[in-house]
């Protein structure tokens, strides 16, 4: 809405009746970029490689290339966290779902908002240094909010992927656009909400669109020029697989293999519109030059009748060669998924005990099923899965027209929310949802880039929903502790060397817990949903914890526009 239009509207209905939403719309569309001057040194690859040992900065979306979300600083500890207080609050111009992971480089913070805005802030004071307001194209297609989960910096450039499916490099000092590359056609259902991962002059990016009949991919672009270097289709031309009848935990998925084989003979391999979005960052194993990512659900979500086979590599962890994008190995959790219980939370590289008790390089993933899966990094094979972190019931009943009740609901378990780990304790920390749902199936033809669910997943009105924070020992699969929360959880979590974990809730609570036993040690009420992963950093000799409080579209948690930093007195 133009300012002129808004004025006319205001005159027509009276200014007092203007809704917050109308104002938010105004801000979103009219706000211009404000160039500035962030005095920030270039980020080197060596710095990024050593991010796991760097308590001063927070350089990668999930802390480091292994994605441990384990912050090595310990100035804020179990003993003093009760004294944590607000250092500053920055209000963004966009009051909509906030999923950003703040990045901090030498006292300069980069945060993003819905509709692909980027801000550079002084990490000590919260003062705005510059603001990039993306001029969104008219065509955006996305299922779960106009979210953006963050940026990454390499050299003097900030890398951003936008809702209208563009990849951009911005000048880290000024916010000016350096280059822009079209990733894919939004009219066909492609969009970007994830933060890129930048490594060895490559910008790695996946795509959303599993609800729209896309063919998913992961790509590497040249960090200097934006030119595509390689593409990996998450759906291979032979997507049929091995006709698996059991899931990763050994439970029967009630597939009608003969009917699927008959359909395959009739329509051929359905790979072209089979979905397989990649929602979150890959982990990078610098020693072996491999990346590990998870691939989302097949399209359409709930109707498997026209997509015979295992639908490879949907609902899978996949490993690729970093330099070439060539396939190395995969493990599929649920073949031929018809519940959207896919794989979205980012993978984490940690050393784990194998079945014989030997310590080996492992990779773990928290599923929407509510299990944490522990794999051998060498061949992707499954070593163990954890106890279920949420109630499971009636798995795997097939969706029906009238709706079949099954737990977990389609949001999980663990949604896109990154987990944290504390390798010293061999614990993984996950935030979970418990949302009883019925699963409904309908059949329709590919709708040219429109929403293609193949039915509906319905929250059952009146049934109690809840959430939890769960610590799992990944060497045993046992739950070490669990804290129940009144609402389903989505956002993320951070563990620190100070013996703490930090995470937030949809009701605005942001809290610190003892990472060994889950005891709550401090909390704060943000006034809007805290549904973003926290980061931590040092500036001026003091440790800060920062988190976005802007609510969430997918679970409709109260919106806000705050970036809040905390520190000790």
């Amino acid at each position: 809405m133009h300012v002129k239009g808004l004025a006319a509207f205001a005159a027509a209905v009276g200014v007092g009746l203007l809704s917050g939403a109308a104002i938010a719309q105004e801000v979103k569309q009219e706000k211009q970029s404000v160039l500035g001057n962030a005095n920030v040194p270039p980020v080197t690859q060596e710095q990024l490689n050593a991010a796991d040992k760097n308590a001063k900065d927070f350089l990668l979306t999930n802390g480091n290339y292994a994605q441990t979300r384990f912050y090595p600083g310990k100035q804020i500890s179990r003993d003093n966290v009760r004294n944590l207080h607000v250092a500053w609050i920055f209000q963004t111009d966009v009051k909509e779902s906030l999923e950003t992971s703040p990045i901090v480089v030498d006292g300069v913070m980069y945060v993003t908002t819905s509709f692909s805005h980027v801000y550079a802030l002084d990490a000590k004071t919260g003062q705005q240094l510059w603001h990039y307001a993306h001029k969104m194209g008219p065509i955006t297609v996305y299922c779960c909010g106009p979210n953006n989960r963050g940026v990454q910096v390499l050299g003097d450039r900030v890398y951003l992927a936008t809702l209208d499916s563009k990849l951009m490099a911005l000048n880290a000092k000024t916010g000016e656009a350096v280059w822009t590359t079209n990733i894919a056609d939004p009219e066909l259902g492609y969009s970007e909400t994830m933060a890129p991962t930048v490594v060895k002059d490559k910008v790695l990016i996946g795509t959303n669109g599993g609800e729209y009949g896309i063919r998913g991919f992961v790509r590497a672009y040249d960090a200097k020029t934006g030119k595509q270097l390689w593409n990996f289709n998450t759906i291979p031309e032979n997507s049929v697989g091995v006709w698996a009848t059991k899931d990763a935990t050994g439970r029967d998925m009630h597939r009608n293999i003969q009917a699927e084989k008959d359909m395959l003979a009739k329509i051929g391999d359905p790979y072209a519109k089979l979905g397989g979005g990649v929602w979150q960052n890959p982990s990078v194993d610098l020693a072996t030059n491999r990346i590990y990512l998870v691939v989302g659900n097949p399209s359409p979500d709930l109707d498997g009748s026209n997509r015979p086979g295992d639908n490879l590599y949907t609902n899978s962890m996949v490993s690729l060669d970093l330099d070439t994008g060539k396939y190395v190995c995969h493990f599929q959790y649920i073949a031929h998924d018809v519940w959207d219980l896919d794989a979205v939370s980012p993978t984490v590289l940690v050393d784990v005990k194998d079945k014989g008790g030997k310590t080996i390089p492992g990779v773990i993933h928290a599923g929407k099923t509510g299990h944490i899966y522990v794999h051998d990094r060498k061949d992707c094979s499954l070593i163990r899965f954890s106890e279920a972190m949420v109630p499971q019931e009636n798995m795997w009943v097939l969706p029906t027209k009238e709706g079949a009740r099954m737990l977990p609901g389609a949001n999980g378990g663990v949604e896109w929310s990154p987990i944290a780990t504390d390798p010293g304790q061999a614990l993984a920390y996950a935030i979970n949802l418990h949302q009883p749902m019925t699963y409904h199936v309908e059949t329709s033809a590919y709708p040219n880039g429109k929403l293609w669910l193949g039915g509906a997943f319905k929250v059952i009105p009146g049934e109690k929903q809840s959430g939890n924070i769960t610590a799992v020992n990944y060497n045993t699969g046992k739950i070490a502790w669990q804290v129940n929360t009144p609402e389903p959880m989505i956002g993320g979590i951070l563990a620190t060397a100070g013996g703490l974990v930090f995470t937030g809730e949809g009701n605005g609570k942001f809290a610190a817990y003892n990472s060994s036993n889950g005891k709550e040690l401090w909390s704060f009420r943000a006034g809007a949903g805290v549904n973003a992963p926290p980061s931590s950093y040092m500036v001026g000799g003091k440790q800060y914890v920062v988190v976005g409080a802007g609510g969430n579209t997918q679970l409709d948690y109260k919106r806000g526009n705050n970036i809040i930093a905390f520190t000790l007195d």
Partner: protein
Amino acid sequence: MFGKLMIGATALLLLAAQVCAETIEDKVAVCAGCHGADGKPVDKTIPTIWGQQAGYLYIQLRDFKRGDRKSEIMQPIATQFERDDMLAIAEYFSQKPWPDLGQPRAPKDVAAKAITASASVGCPACHLDRFQGDGTVPRLAGMGRDYLAKTIADFRTRARGNNPGMSDLMLATSPDDLAALVEYLAGL
């Protein structure tokens, strides 16, 4: 016969020239006949397009032209336009102020029922907070009540065939809940 053909061909050529030379105001002049010169539709089953999301308006024009969305009135109109015309028309109407149709707010009990139904299938995940829409997803807040009711009914029968995902969601929602949603959305 030849004469008739010539007249027909000349008319077509004139029409083509007209389409090329037209300004955006010329192109949209025909729209006011149904969608309203002041943005208020002349019939209650016709949607509000003033202030609607540009991406949504473009997709509907595209789908009318393709025949994915059926309408004896809209299809011949949309058929005249190329993609750039459609985008320009969509942008033009999206910049107009959303008209106040003067529809009453839903009573509290109806609103509560609507909000529960909406949360159950996740309407705000696409239509966003307060049903303002974005991009290719339409604003529903304050849309004409009869149009909303007709559209939902058409989604349920798949007579409105250009968004099967919406049909699935509407089929999974009870008629009672949908009636509450219509009241609620119209009154926002």
